[in-house]
């Protein structure tokens, strides 16, 4: 089910993919915003089909930079990235979207003057034919959006906007969804809603790589986690294991360097 399809073939995410097939593989990644200043310094990241993987770490560890590098938003200076066994290092963003990667930025992740429907439509800009069909499934996953399909996204609450952003990123049925701190800035009740929806999305077979500040909750629901520090992954392992690892706890509770 998870063999490497050509990037343009439609992917069916009807049944969960068999876990274990490597979907995303980044080796020795070096990247940063400004020339000669590497923020991500030799990271290895793997995500298998259908897996839910969290990246946690102190502020300034390079978590967001890592996820943006994987999506072509930050220049990659070294290392290689494979997606579905094809090399995609330094691919422009729209080709990665075409290949089956969805991305939700941490902030400003909706088009505020566009309606909910128009936001979703923009998520399927590359394949407008799928729009109607995708609405059906996504409105089922996010019923609140069906009720508010004509509302401008900018007038919605933070939690609802996050749902719009998730739905937009799912319009092309990505096999991998990259989430940059999906719970940031949300009320505790909304954090529950978002994490619940993320688990639902994952249960439908979409692999998720998510960067999170809320480390405990992220690890508790993840298949695996990476602990990033100073642009390198220090620890990796199953979510539960990392959660109970005294060294990981120390890295957080010890209050390592910020910024």
């Amino acid at each position, binding site marked *: 089910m998870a063999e490497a399809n050509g990037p343009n073939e439609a992917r069916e995410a009807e049944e969960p993919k068999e876990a274990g097939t490597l979907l995303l593989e980044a080796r020795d990644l070096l990247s940063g915003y400004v020339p000669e200043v590497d923020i991500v310094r030799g990271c290895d990241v793997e995500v298998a089909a259908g897996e839910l993987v969290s990246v946690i770490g102190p502020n300034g560890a390079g978590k967001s930079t890592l996820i943006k590098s994987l999506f072509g938003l930050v220049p990659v200076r070294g290392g290689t990235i494979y997606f579905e066994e094809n090399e995609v290092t330094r691919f422009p963003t729209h080709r990665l979207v075409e290949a089956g990667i969805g991305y939700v930025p941490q902030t400003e992740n909706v088009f505020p003057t*566009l309606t909910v429907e128009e936001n979703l439509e923009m998520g399927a800009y590359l394949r407008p034919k799928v729009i109607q069909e995708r609405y059906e499934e996504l409105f089922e996953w996010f019923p609140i959006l069906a009720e508010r399909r004509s509302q401008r996204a900018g007038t919605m609450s933070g939690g609802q906007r996050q749902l719009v952003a998730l739905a937009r990123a799912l319009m092309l049925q990505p096999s991998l969804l990259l989430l940059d701190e999906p719970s940031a800035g949300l009320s505790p009740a909304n954090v529950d809603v978002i994490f619940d929806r993320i688990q639902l999305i994952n249960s439908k077979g979409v692999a998720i790589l998510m960067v999170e500040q809320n480390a405990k909750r992220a690890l508790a629901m993840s298949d695996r986690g990476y602990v990033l520090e100073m642009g390198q992954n220090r620890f990796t392992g199953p979510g539960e294991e990392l959660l109970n690892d005294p060294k990981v706890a120390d890295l957080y509770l010890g209050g390592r360097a910020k910024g």
Partner: protein
Amino acid sequence: MQEAFQLLANGIVIGSVIAVAAVGLSLVFGVLGLINVAHGDFLTLGAFTALVFVGLGLPLYVAAVPAIAAGALAMGGLEKVLWKPMRDRGTSNVNLLIISIGLALVLRHVIFWIFGARVQRFGPVSERIDFGLFALTPQDIIIVVGSAIALIGTGLMLQKTRIGTAMRALSDNKDLAEASGINVSRVILYTWVIAGALTAYGGVLLGLQGRLFPNMGWFLLLLIFAGVILGGIGSAYGAMIGSLIIGVAQEMATHSIIGLPADLKTAVAFLVLILVLLVRPQGIFGRRKAI
């Protein structure tokens, strides 16, 4: 009373011309954040292209077609050879603005060089038709109707088509548009092409309203900016409404009760602009930006 209606009608006529030009400027600003000082000179380009074809014996409504094509081609072409390469090199918007001033001068002087400074007309101006409260020339009526068609068309394009929605998406958030898989470069190119077509068409209407001379678009540019800013910068609908208000305000200022000389009417347009911005700094339809 009749004077007021006449001035209102005159204001709507000139406001309609400004509106067509302002929407083009606003679209480009919304999508790129670029303030294109050369915009007025593209009106001139449109007007003179139409004049060439009128000179060949074509009626103006036919001559408008190559004029619109010339505007679309010129703005689209410049995106390819000038604006995009500049942006790819990371040129700042301030530098791009300076470049657009240079472009304005080049365009104006080329037109001057080809057509000379002589003031020209598309044709004789017809007699005014009396509507009771006001009188307008047939040309004036064509301007108002022609402008309404272009503005409604632009509104439908923005609201109902995929490319229009993508333009609004880009104006909202270019990075997110990129991350959604929208081909941002192509949407920008289409924006220029549409803005170029609208602007050249606006130039034809401007020529129809008065006379053609190499500075005609340049002289209108400040009023176009006023319309765009009054309506809320980057909002195409705001630009339409703002332009009409500017047009009407400056004509009404010459009403005998107010008694301002016609030379001061442009100043009144700007006074209205300043007063509105004092109350609503983001313009009528503009969004308040977070600091």
